[in-house]
């Protein structure tokens, strides 16, 4: 029973029981609100009967030329609603928007190399490990950059795995506004963006 709709600010006041889960990070406000302000179509919530929050997905679209792509920043489902394909539905929605509205080449996401259940789920959804990013998570754990090609990438070039692992510095995308899940000072950034 899933009503999927755009995430709105008030949902931040209702997602405590999803975010108290230790694997779900509660970011600072400017992080959520920057996503809402910039990519509202990439931030959705799944709601069950009684207006309970089942889970949500947040993401963005970014990149240049053939690396113009959708990115899944976070996807999470409350324990009560797991194993009901909620994450799958949310991921499909994001893929649809990347594919049909923003005409992106692929969708990517990062996952802890040790998070086997999640990796398996993403594989089931059609994602492949494109490359390993060394010590991506707080300089300790490796991350896997997983990708799924969209219809615009006819030859599926975007998902041909890289042979060697990369370091976080080499990630071209993360030079963008939001780096590695941490938002720099918005004011400062905005100054430089407009400068």
């Amino acid at each position: 029973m899933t009503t999927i709709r755009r995430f709105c600010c008030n949902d931040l006041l209702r997602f405590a029981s999803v975010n108290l889960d230790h694997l779900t990070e509660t970011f600072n406000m400017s992080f959520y609100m920057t996503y809402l302000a910039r990519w509202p179509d990439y931030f959705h919530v799944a709601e069950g009967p009684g207006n309970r929050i089942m889970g949500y997905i947040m993401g963005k679209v970014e990149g240049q030329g053939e690396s113009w792509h959708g990115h899944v920043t976070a996807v999470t489902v409350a324990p009560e609603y797991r194993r009901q394909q909620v994450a799958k539905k949310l991921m499909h929605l994001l893929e649809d928007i990347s594919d049909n509205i923003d005409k992106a080449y692929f969708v990517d996401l990062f996952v802890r190399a040790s998070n086997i259940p999640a990796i398996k789920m993403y594989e089931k959804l059609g994602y492949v490990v494109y490359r390993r990013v060394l010590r991506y998570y707080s300089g300790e754990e490796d991350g896997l950059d997983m990708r799924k090609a969209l219809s615009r990438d006819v030859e599926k070039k975007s998902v041909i795995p890289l042979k060697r692992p990369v370091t976080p510095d080499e990630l071209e995308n993360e030079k963008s506004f939001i780096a590695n899940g941490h938002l720099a000072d918005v004011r400062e950034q905005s100054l430089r963006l407009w400068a």
Partner: protein
Amino acid sequence: MASKFGLAGGIPERRVRPIWDAIDSRQYKNALKHSASLLSKFPNSPYALALKALILERMGKSEEALSICLNAKELLCMSDSFLMDDLSLSTLQIVFQRLDRLDLATGCYEFACGKFPNNLELIMGLFNCYVREYSYVKQQQTAIKMYKLAGEERFLLWAVCSIQSQVFCGHGGEKLLALAEGLLKKHIVSHSLHEPEAVTVYISVLEQQGKYGDALEVLSGKLGSLLSIEVDRLHLQGRLLARAGDNAAAACTFQKILESCPDDWQCFLHYLGCLLEDDKSWCNGSIGEPVHPPKSVENLSHVPDDMFDSRVSDASIFVQKLQTESRTEPVRGPYLAILELERRKYLHGKGEKEKLLNAFEQYFCRFGHLACFCSDVEAFLEVLTPDEKMDLLEMLMKSSASLSMGPTRSLGQSLTLQKMQEIIGNYYKLPASELEGFAVKMIDMYCRILPLSRDLDLQEGMHGEELLCMVSNLLVQLFWRSRRLGYLLEAVMVLEFGLTIRRYVWQYKILLLHLYSHLGALPVAYEWYGTLDVKNILLETVLHHILPQMLSSPLWVDLNNILKDYLKFMDDHFRESADLTFLAFHHRNYSKVIEFVQFKDQLQHSNQYLVARLESYILRLKEKAGSIEEEECVLESMNCGTQVLELVSETSCNSLTFNEDLQTRPWWTPTSLKNYLLETCEELPCCSRESLLKCRREWEVNMQKIIQKRSFLPRMIYLSIRCASNSVKENIESNGSIDSSVCLELKSLLAHYADILGFSLNDAVEVLVEVSDGRKSLEALGSNMVDWLNLAVFYNAWSLNSHEDGHSGGDGSRPAWHIVTAVLEKCVLHKVRVLASLVCFPGGDLPMLVQMIAESLAWHHLVLQSYVQSWLPCGKKKKKAGPADQSSPLLSHMVLESISSLRATLQVVAKWLREQIDRTEGETLDLCLSSVETEYEEGPGQVFRILKDFISSASEAELGDRIFQALKSWSPEEVARKIVNGQHKILSEFLQICNSKMKKLEALRQQI
């Protein structure tokens, strides 16, 4: 822009870049060095100065930064066009903003725009300034100016959003919206619209004016086709149709959505609401969703019976179709829909109980194994009578027994059945022995299924984890009924056991932290709270689990940290919020602009935020109350208390918001003001949704009262100190009152305060008099003695300086001293007696005792200090020259008596505290453990025994290494020790407060 020509603020970019790089990498000293060399070359460049100010501000040198900024501003205002660029201005703006001087930044831009009225970049900067200041009218005017200059769609929309912001804030209504509509229409004629968000805003402007037909026309026309997500477009269409009253067409639209999204529950409810014409959710006029929306539709349909029947049957056919078509998908919506249809029929008086129960049963057979079954059906249970609920339960149990299925599915179902009993409230009716039986069965089941989780990752939820919550809930209920402490300890043991096996279960932690708080081991509760990693916005929704207990505890250091963290989060957000709103403007997501503005409002009116600000003032007063000089400094920093009064009246108590997520609280404390374990009433606790809602409403109303009451404290303390000192001066200078305004103001506050307690001031004082002389018992003061004690303290201070005290005798004696001393003594000693009878667990009475000492007694101590101080001639010992002792020997006697009574009272408290602390750890541990380690066949200890037996017989092969090792590491002694240590810590902190007060009182006595 300057940088395009390789110049930044008139300076070559290569010279500026190293400064920015240094700032970005936080090497401020380095940045300062670069800045110095830049300034030597460009000493009069506003940009170079602004950069220096930026660095200094980051280094914490605010004053220096401000003075440089002002200098730069001056230069800028004198400069020619070459230096008046956006980069210099925006850099200055950043520093001004960080220095909380938005007005100066706006002034810079206003000046620049006045000088260069056609420079779009500068006007955009000015617009940004107004966004930061939430000046919607000026935003609107500035956006219109940009629109006229550039003719761009986005500027028009900026203006429209600014208009909508004004409307949402209650300033101007229809006229403004009509203006927005007119502007948009005119633009559409000449340029059309190109952004989907612009169309959405256009439609919302029409919708807000009730022009649903026009809005629908736009939606179905060329502009509507810009909304490329079909489902979103249909949702909008359905809503507009419903609000226009065209229910049939709206139902058709929602039907269309359901055909592609059969699982969309909200949409199904809208569909049915339109079909049966009973959905009132469209009528409230708000666009945004409420934070806590109602769980189900409760309105009755008004369509005639025959029409009702035919529409319900249409809906049934449609639902059947959805079921067939979505058979391969994991959807629950079309199945729950049957239940909803039966419920609506039932509400309409056309349903049959049998059918409704059957619908429940069918849904159970299909989805009863899912963890979300109970939350799915919760709202449906409300139409059933208690007996019907029991019938339902029986039915579900029977059908569960008859179904054959795999082990995990069957496990899921039996968990659901147990949860259902909890929701239905069945447990509250059972005799204790049966309850105990259930608890035993559940813990046994938990142990039996533990092997199923042997291969699961530590991060993954384990099978049957919720059983431990249910067991502990039952045990707490057994305690509530029997007052046998063993049950409570058993509940703690069970949850601690669960956390030993998997340390991530937040549900256990929340239950535990409330149990520990109740057991008087607040430090342990605080520790568990810490492991929940509550941060950012969760502070607003989850902090209520710990904040109220901390507020009345002696753990001032921890409390200070909690308040600081929370206030920092909120204040940071308020500071950033406008920038984020501008980001939404900038990225043309106009609908988010309004959302952000409303959200900031929602948080700014948060009751918890107000409480936190208020209590951080009061905490400072409590900390410094031992010394009147220090207290006066604290009071001065809050403008003699008026700052606090203004704070509360500004955030008008009627518009407070309540953002706390109360759903995660344990059954026995549904709000922070309710704790069933402290009550001995026979009444069932509120477990139904209706009574929970009532509880919530009560909490909201009471919080408003509490906030008002507490907001008077700082000012009343200040005025009391003044009154006390004035009274002495008055005696000295017999020419009458020195400053009657102090007295008058205090009296008016006292009257307000008494009014909140539900009395006129005279009546309230009468109550205090009667309690003080024993004509009335303490019960007359009701549950919150601290409020009454405060009233007594401040009343006494007022009466010292007043000539209208009806209770003072004509002989000049001031019995108000007696009243406050006697009532304080009575209340404190009463609490100590109650606590002493609780053997080793102070439980819920300790916080009030702490408040009596740390607040009421402390305020009275201040009055005494003030009185004595002004009695003594400055710099001289009283012995040398004491007009006071000649003029009022009686008064000096009263003061001495009051001091010695306070000391005696504190001594009793301190003695009791010392006894508790000195009790050997072993003794308390034994007491603790022996209450759960019993050999009896009933009473506390049954569950504990099963756990112990299970651990001793556990096999590594069956459970796997991780679980096995965890089991073995669980130590009940450790848990008991934690409780004892936690209590010790809190009692010691309290003792320290008492000791320090006694010392100070002794010093005061010696002064006389």
